[in-house]
């Protein structure tokens, strides 16, 4: 399940809802990764753009991959502005056994960072500044650039 919200995530509510939804499904491990915006480099927060169609395709492929190991994925992400010390991102794995779950949460979060079509901006003096240096080129980048 992929959930997108405007602004910061209500972490306690989302985790409580997910836990209630899944606790009777006989998974042994529930591992959420919760990203919290750090107060650093003078920013007041972060802001996000998301291209939803490709994000959904990316997520569905991961869900299929997880289901082949009997596991399930959940994800929530913010759109727009997210102040410091609030959450913009939660990914969670449910798995029968811990080892699959611990491996999947690592691989899922790392691949999210490398491939999810989301653009991050620092909020500085009320302005959005694209976080270009912290961003990752997608596969095939430069295809339309003249040599």
């Amino acid at each position, binding site marked *: 399940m992929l959930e997108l919200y405007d602004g910061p995530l209500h972490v306690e509510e989302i985790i409580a809802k997910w836990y209630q939804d899944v606790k009777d499904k006989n998974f042994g491990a529930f591992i959420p990764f919760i990203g919290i915006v750090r107060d650093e480099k003078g920013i007041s927060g972060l802001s996000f753009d998301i291209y939803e169609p490709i994000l959904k395709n990316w997520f569905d492929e991961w869900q299929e991959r997880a289901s082949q190991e009997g596991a399930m994925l959940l994800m929530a992400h913010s759109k727009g502005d997210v102040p410091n010390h609030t959450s913009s991102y939660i990914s969670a794995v449910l798995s029968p056994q811990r080892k699959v779950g611990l491996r999947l949460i690592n691989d899922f979060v790392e691949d999210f960072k*490398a491939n999810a079509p989301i653009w*991050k901006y620092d909020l500085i003096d009320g302005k959005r500044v694209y976080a270009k240096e912290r961003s990752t080129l997608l596969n095939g980048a430069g295809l339309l650039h003249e040599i």
Partner: protein
Amino acid sequence: MARIEFLGPIGKEPLEVDIKNLKELKEIFSEDKKLQEWLKICAVAINDTMVNSLDVDIKPNDKISLLPPVCGG
């Protein structure tokens, strides 16, 4: 006409172009010097599927998306 969308921070309005393949799009773009900085780092999707080659036919009504470097979370 295919529709070109410039995603995220590029901040450019969508374009409609009459092209048969991505090579033609590259030629059209070559005249836009300002866009070259973005093209250097942008990946390309056609109808929401990422592509890695210029040898792709473009049909009318195709959606072509330019995706700059990403950083979710």
